[in-house]
C-alpha cells in the first residue's frame, strides 16, 4: 500500500482523536514551564526587562514562517497528488499562521517603541513580515471567493507556492539589507549569540508555542473533515429528497 494511502481522512480522525488531548496538554505544560523560565531569566544588559517580549515575539515569528512553509508543502500535495488531506491541512493552517504572524507584528511593534523609539519602520524584515500576513489573508480570501472546492484548492496552492518566495526573504532580509531590526541571533552560522540564560527559556517557549500551533492545526483539520462530511451528507440528503 503506498504511503500516501495511509494518510486518509478516516485514519487521521482516528489517530487525532487519541493524540489531540495529549498534544494540547503537553502544549499548556511546556508553555507554563517556558513562561516561568522566561520571567526568572535575567534582564538583558542593554534592553533591560523589555527582553521578556522576545519570549513570545520570536516564537510567533518562527511559527508564522513555519505555518506558511506547512501550507507550501501542502500545496505540493494538492497539485501533485491531489491528496484530500493536503487540502484540509492547507486550509486549517491559514488562520493559525495568520494569527501568529499578526501577533509577531504587534508584539514587535510594542518591543520596538521602547527600544527603537518607534512602533514601525519600513525596513526589510518588518515589511517582509507584513507581506507574509497579507499573503495569508490573500490565500484565505481567494479560497473563500471560489465556490468549487477543487478549483479553490488548486488556486490557493498556486498562490501559496508563488508567495513562498517571501519566506527566505523574511529570514535573510536582515543579512541582505541594512535594517533597523537586529540580525539573526539564534539560527546562524557560528551558533547562537544569545547567552544560555536567555536562550533556554526562549527555546522552551518556542517548543510550547509550536505544540500549541500543532494542536490547533490538528483541531482545524478535524473541523474541516467534519465540515466536508456534513456537506456531502446534506448534498446526498437533498438528492434523495429530489428523487
Amino acid at each position: 500500500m503506498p504511503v500516501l494511502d495511509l494518510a486518509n481522512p478516516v485514519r487521521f480522525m482516528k489517530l487525532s482523536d487519541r493524540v489531540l488531548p495529549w498534544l494540547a496538554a503537553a502544549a499548556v505544560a511546556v508553555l507554563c514551564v517556558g513562561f516561568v523560565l522566561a520571567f526568572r531569566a535575567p534582564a538583558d544588559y542593554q534592553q533591560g526587562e523589555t527582553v521578556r517580549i522576545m519570549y513570545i515575539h520570536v516564537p510567533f515569528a518562527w511559527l508564522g514562517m513555519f505555518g506558511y512553509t506547512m501550507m507550501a508543502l501542502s500545496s505540493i500535495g494538492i497539485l501533485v497528488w491531489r491528496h484530500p488531506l493536503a487540502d484540509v491541512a492547507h486550509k486549517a493552517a491559514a488562520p493559525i499562521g495568520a494569527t501568529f504572524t499578526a501577533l509577531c507584528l504587534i508584539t514587535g511593534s510594542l518591543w520596538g517603541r521602547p527600544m527603537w523609539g518607534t512602533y514601525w519602520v519600513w525596513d526589510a524584515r518588518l515589511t517582509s513580515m507584513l507581506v507574509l500576513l497579507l499573503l495569508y489573508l490573500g490565500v484565505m480570501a481567494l479560497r473563500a471567493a471560489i465556490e468549487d472546492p477543487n478549483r479553490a484548492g488548486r488556486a490557493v496552492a498556486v498562490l501559496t507556492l508563488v508567495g513562498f518566495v517571501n519566506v527566505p526573504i523574511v529570514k535573510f532580509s536582515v543579512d541582505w539589507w541594512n535594517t533597523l531590526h537586529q540580525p539573526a541571533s539564534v539560527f546562524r552560522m557560528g551558533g547562537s549569540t544569545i547567552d544560555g540564560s536567555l536562550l533556554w527559556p526562549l527555546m522552551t517557549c518556542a517548543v510550547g508555542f509550536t505544540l500549541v500551533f500543532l494542536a490547533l492545526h490538528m483541531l482545524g483539520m478535524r473541523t474541516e473533515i467534519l465540515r466536508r462530511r456534513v456537506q456531502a451528507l446534506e448534498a446526498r440528503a437533498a438528492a434523495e429528497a429530489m428523487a
Partner: protein
Amino acid sequence: MTHFIFIAASYGVSLLGLVLLTGWMVVAYRGQRRALADLEARGIRRRARMAGTEPVRSS
C-alpha cells in the same frame, strides 16, 4: 520594572489573540460535530458507517 506597559500589552494581546483563535476553532469544531450528529440522527449516514467499517467514536 522598566517599560512595564509594553511588556504587559505584548503578553495581554498575545493571550487575547490565542484565546480568541482557540475559542473560535473549538466553537467551529463543536458546530460541525453537532451538525453531523443531527444528520445521523435523521438516518443520513456515511457509507463507511452504514457498512460498519468505521468505529462510531471516530467523529
